[in-house]
């Protein structure tokens, strides 16, 4: 681990030359029997993995239009070939989105298409061998499902969908990845990704109340399991103890306090992140999301608000209504969804992002700020990939870009943008998303951060930027880890609500 170094910055925007095989390897740690079996997957690679994998592929092709269309539609035009941060950072050609897709597509062609059955060489079709399976494991664990390639594809082919399908097949044959499966197991068992049990969580929150009291002299509460509260806050569990995440949690609490909003956390459902998406498994995705529905019903809340977390917000915004009925517009005969939707207050978006909540309050003039509290910072904003390309905030397309920036500008005086082809829907992933935030993939994570670090360096050189705000727990964890390797101070990264927390005035209003 000590020999992991940052790759050299490119003279932007040079497209790197190919270095075939540079990221070949065994991939991240494989999940143990215990971890796999806890999720209902085979403990280890099954004898008949070949047949089961092909059968699973057929099953997924019949269930997901995305996969079916994406397997056929690619013309190898290469539009995506230079868009992936892992390709840019590693130069391994198999990290080009199209080449990554072809690892799966070649097998699809061989077993599911006529030309692939008749003339495999001609159309680039391959038998599913053990080597191919290992290659899947290695390279589909080098994709963070960030969807940047899908922005540029003329057919909207989204490698995330293909990575999810590949990981689902791998899990089905007992070849799961340790990090993701371990975390999913913890959610089922304890209620959050970090495995923080209820009593520990309660202690942490009490400690936070004391800290805030010491710092501000005001009793800001961090309530848990309060029945009848208006708002249920579901946030990534990293917010409860990791730095700099915790400063944003304090920010949310101060916003609720200052606006007189009754709110609560849930000990049973103390996690917004949903790793079920990372492994592409609908059952896991749904089961994990169901905890939030259950908590909302039990606590009788009127609103569900989600903290700063990228993939969590994608799942919440895009999938919760489908998976669990958290949302609006269910059919009157849809008893499952109606049960919850009748309880929720539909004057507000369900679910809402904490940034939507805060921005609404700022617009209603229910919050006041001392912007000079953030004057020590020259701030830039890193759009988190899954917020940018998999979700929305507010009423208009692109609200997910405007609202966090509006908040920053409302609480701070110095804000600058990074290069436009690296922000908003063209933003680069931090390099640690999609189930890759594990130390056994640190080399990949460092290389994958390269494009973001390059433009950050640019803003540092040109504008003296010393704070990069973001709204994702994974971004925060990834950047604090890799930025020192690039020579930045790890304290440069933090949440939007960390800035809110600095500037908010609690005494008045």
């Amino acid at each position, binding site marked *: 681990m000590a020999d992991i170094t940052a790759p050299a910055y490119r003279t932007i925007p040079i497209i790197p030359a190919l270095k075939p095989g540079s990221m070949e390897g065994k991939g991240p740690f494989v999940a143990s029997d215990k971890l796999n079996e806890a999720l209902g997957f085979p403990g280890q690679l099954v004898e008949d993995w070949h047949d089961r994998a092909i059968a699973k592929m057929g099953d997924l092709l019949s269930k997901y239009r995305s996969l079916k269309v994406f397997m*056929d*539609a690619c013309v*190898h035009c290469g539009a995506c070939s230079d868009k992936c941060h892992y390709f840019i950072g590693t130069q391994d050609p198999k990290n080009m989105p199209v080449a990554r897709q072809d690892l799966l597509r070649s097998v699809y062609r061989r077993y599911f298409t006529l030309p692939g059955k008749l003339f495999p060489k001609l159309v680039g079709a391959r038998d599913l061998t053990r080597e191919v399976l290992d290659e899947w494991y290695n390279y589909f664990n080098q994709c963070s499902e960030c969807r940047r390639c899908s922005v540029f594809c003329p057919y909207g082919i989204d490698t995330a969908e293909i990575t999810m399908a590949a990981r689902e097949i791998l899990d089905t044959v007992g070849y799961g990845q340790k990090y993701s499966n371990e975390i999913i197991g913890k959610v089922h068992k304890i209620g959050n990704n970090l495995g923080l049990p209820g009593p520990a969580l309660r202690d942490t929150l009490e400690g936070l109340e004391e800290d805030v009291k010491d710092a501000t002299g005001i009793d800001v509460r961090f309530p848990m399991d309060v029945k009848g509260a208006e708002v249920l806050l579901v946030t990534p569990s990293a917010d409860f103890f990791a730095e700099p995440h915790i400063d944003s949690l304090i920010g949310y609490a101060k916003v609720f306090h200052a606006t007189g909003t009754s709110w609560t956390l849930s000990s049973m459902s103390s996690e917004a992140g949903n790793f079920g998406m990372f492994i592409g498994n609908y059952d896991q995705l749904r089961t994990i999301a169901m905890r939030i529905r259950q908590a909302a019903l039990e606590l009788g809340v009127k609103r569900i608000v989600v903290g700063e977390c990228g993939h969590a917000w994608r799942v919440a915004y895009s999938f919760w*209504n489908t998976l669990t009925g958290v949302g609006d517009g269910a059919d009157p005969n849809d008893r499952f969804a109606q049960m919850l939707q009748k309880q929720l207050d539909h004057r507000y978006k369900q679910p809402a992002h904490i940034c939507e909540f805060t921005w609404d309050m700022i617009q209603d003039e229910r919050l006041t700020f001392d912007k000079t509290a953030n004057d020590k910072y020259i701030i830039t904003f890193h759009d988190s990939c899954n917020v940018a390309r998999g979700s929305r905030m507010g009423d208009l397309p692109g609200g997910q870009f405007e609202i966090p920036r509006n908040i920053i500008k409302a609480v701070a005086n110095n804000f600058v943008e990074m290069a436009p082809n690296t922000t908003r829907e063209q933003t680069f992933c931090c390099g640690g998303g999609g189930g890759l935030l594990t130390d056994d993939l640190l080399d990949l994570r460092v290389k994958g951060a390269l494009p973001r670090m390059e433009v950050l360096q640019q803003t540092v050189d040109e504008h003296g930027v010393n704070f990069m705000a973001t709204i994702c727990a994974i971004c925060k964890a990834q950047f604090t880890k890799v930025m020192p390797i690039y020579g930045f101070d790890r304290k440069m990264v933090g949440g939007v609500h960390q800035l809110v927390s600095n500037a908010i005035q609690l005494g008045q209003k």
Partner: protein
Amino acid sequence: MTSMVFAILFYLATLLFVVGLLYRINSYARTPAPLKIPTTPAPTTNGGVVLRMTREVVFFESLFKANLWTWAAGWLFHASLLLVLLRHLRYFTEPVWGWVAFIQPFGMYAGITMLLGLGGLWLRRLFVERIRYISTPSDHLMLLLLMGIAASGLSMKFLAHTDVIAVKEFFLGLMHLNIQALPADLLLIVHLSLVVSLLVVFPFSKLLHAPGVFFSPTRNQKDDPREHRHLSTWAAKLESEKS
């Protein structure tokens, strides 16, 4: 003899093309899209989706953002191909529709720009390292097939004329199940053989990108998951089993 062979080939190829394509389209349409996955920022209304899709299909908007060279060559090829196809309507209509007659001269030059666009795409495939890496033999062959069609067609226009009146009679006859004689020119035989191959290959190849784009969930979905509950049949079954 040649006439009979080509008549049969065209009937079979057209049948394969139509049935194959309908089969693929039907399978795309019937496969559920269980989750909302538009690539955002996405339109929030049906009208917005139609606009997005139109920009994608007419102007290749995403490709434009991705790479100007690929976009230029790709768009030039497709736009030219469209004109060329429309121009060829004159072999299938009597009397020739006014607007088809009007575009004849443009359609002719479009044959040249089509070749240029294809050539550009092929040069990229041959000489850009990344694109060469991802190219399969069939990717090259597909371009060669299309270039062959364009080149043989243009040759008949500019090098060795064929009896276009007879060609037209052959195709009009074909449409009325009345086989007429086809001129036995080598260039024409080559041109028509390649077109037959294209029709046959279409429903089995990457040319499925043409219907596929309309079924791409990241492009054709409305961004409204909070406002409407989107539930596929197989996902709904999970609910009735439990609560």
